[in-house]
């Protein structure tokens, strides 16, 4: 973030998303209630941004409708978003794929809960595969940001829109129930005015705002029946994903410089592992933490560099082990990569994580 308003407030991660959306000039929010993220829609309905910035807020009849409303709004070049939790995000996958195919920008927040199925309302990170590897049908990827604090819930709401419009792609914030529900201090982003229609016409010449005499009709579609043309679209998308991989990798390192063992964790588990690093260091174990901030693009290069100096990695996740596959791909067998995780909504404690490190490596 460049410049924040200086006011520090205390709020939930979910509330921070709502406030940040209004502040960053979001044009429309479309959502459906689901635990543990309903506060986002509730907060927006309470602050009534349509009376101030003119932002549209609408409770849809389903997550299927929500994501297609995002499609419609994005097709007009508007900054639009939806939020949900795991089962709801599964329902959105068709729409996300259509947005990727139609090259539409938009923000989807997944405040993950445990699955499969209806699962639990407790936190989880088990939608990593869905978010990072595709989720919907067809060859597409999208930027995935993993916030680890309420502050990042606010900051990434702004960043996600910027990435979405820079690369014309749906962009996901992959949080979990703890990040959504916990209260922390946060400095909200400064107000940005919503873009005018003239600005949208200039920045998004493809937007369906009504055909003017000086241009051909615009149409938003992911359909192309001619194989050669469809492959060209695929190649264009793939080239864009390579650009994203080149320019948008984000991660944080904590005490990795002299580390012999590195925890790899994102979101809530990164917070837990940060404490585990402290506990390990107090016992004389040289531990560090690599926290991927972008899950796509993944900090593959950084992991492979660290692999040259460490004795091993421990991927710690609230899942059966999903991100660990990307760590293993990056390490490529040079040092051991182990996994520790809990499921069903259980959050491992720092000492539990440290014990796992000892058991696997020491």
């Amino acid at each position, binding site marked *: 973030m460049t410049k924040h308003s200086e006011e520090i407030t205390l709020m939930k991660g979910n509330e921070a998303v709502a406030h940040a959306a209004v502040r960053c000039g979001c044009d429309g929010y479309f959502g459906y209630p689901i635990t543990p993220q309903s506060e986002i829609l509730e907060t927006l309905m309470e602050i009534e941004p349509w009376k101030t910035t003119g932002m549209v807020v609408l409770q*849809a009849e389903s997550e299927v*409708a929500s994501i297609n409303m995002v499609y419609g709004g994005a097709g007009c070049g508007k900054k639009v978003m939806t939020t949900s939790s795991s089962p709801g995000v599964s329902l959105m996958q068709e*729409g996300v794929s259509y947005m990727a195919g139609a090259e539409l920008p938009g923000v989807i927040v997944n405040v993950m809960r445990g699955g499969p199925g209806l699962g639990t309302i407790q936190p989880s990170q088990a939608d990593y595969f869905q978010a990072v590897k595709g989720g919907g049908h067809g060859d597409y990827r999208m930027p995935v940001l993993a916030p680890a604090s309420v502050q990042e819930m606010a900051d990434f709401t702004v960043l996600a829109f910027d990435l979405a419009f820079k690369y014309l792609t749906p962009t996901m914030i992959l949080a979990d129930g703890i990040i959504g529900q916990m209260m922390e201090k946060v400095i909200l982003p400064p107000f940005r005015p919503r873009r005018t229609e003239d600005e949208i016409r200039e920045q998004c010449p493809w937007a369906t705002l009504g055909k*003017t005499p000086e241009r051909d009709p615009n*149409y938003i579609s992911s359909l192309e029946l001619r194989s050669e043309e469809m492959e060209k679209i695929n190649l264009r998308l793939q080239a864009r994903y390579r650009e994203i991989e080149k320019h948008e990798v984000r991660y944080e390192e904590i005490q990795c410089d002299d580390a012999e063992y590195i925890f790899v964790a994102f979101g809530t588990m990164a917070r837990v592992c940060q404490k585990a690093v402290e506990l390990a260091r107090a016992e004389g174990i040289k531990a560090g933490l690599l926290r991927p901030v972008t899950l796509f693009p993944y900090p593959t290069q950084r992991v492979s560099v660290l692999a040259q100096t460490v004795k091993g990695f421990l991927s710690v996740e609230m899942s059966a082990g999903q991100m660990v596959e990307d760590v293993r791909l990056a390490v490529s067998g040079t040092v051991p990569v182990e996994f520790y995780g809990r499921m069903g909504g259980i959050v491992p404690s720092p000492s539990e994580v440290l014990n796992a490190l000892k058991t696997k490596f020491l």
Partner: protein
Amino acid sequence: MSSIQDIVDPANLVYEKTTVMNDTPMHYCPGCSHGVVHKILGEIIQEMGIQEKTIGVAPVGCAVFAYKYLDIDWQQAAHGRAPAVATAIKRLLPDRYVFTYQGDGDLAAIGTAETIHACSRGENIAIIYINNGIYGMTGGQMAPTTLPGMKSTTSPNGRDQQLEGHALDMSKLLVQLDGVCYVTRQSVHTVGAVRKTKKAIRKALENSMLNKGTSIVEVVSTCNSGWRMSPADSNTWMEENMFPVYGLGDLKDI
């Protein structure tokens, strides 16, 4: 006998194609109702002078390529989701004319939830609903609107109501919703019918600017390819079989 010069003399012209409809060859089968409804739409948009202010939402189905033929801005929605897509467009651009153009598979099967809730919210959009009782694009399968006893590739011995349920009359259902201001059922198989449909679609588009709620124009249509009939026989079959179930006229107008 008049010469070519006389015929092309502007003073002697009796008909002019709307400029909103372009010259792209249509993929629709000869005899299909879609082309007529497209032409009507183009004429209305031109007559109302709203080409710059109109955004169409195309479905999945035969009209998936509607954006190729009418020179307005379009979005092509996922199957059944056009009313959700149109909801967002209209809410974000309230001074635009926003319409969906959907078939019976799109609107009455996979998109039932989106249709009912857009109508229940009273979205200020026009819904143009082409009901030919069959899935045309995929080759003539049974639709929710397929008549009892009617043959399709997935009801080859005729729709058995005990096994496959009943024909779904969406317009009758939508009439009951408070968000809906106008429901009418028309057809385009005769000159008179075309004129009535044109009036209905124009009214639906006009309603969308009056904050009255949702307007639905159902066009009972033929699918001669899917029905395995000639275009002329299809029109007769429609009159004899479709109209008794899907009766023409206004169902709601407030």
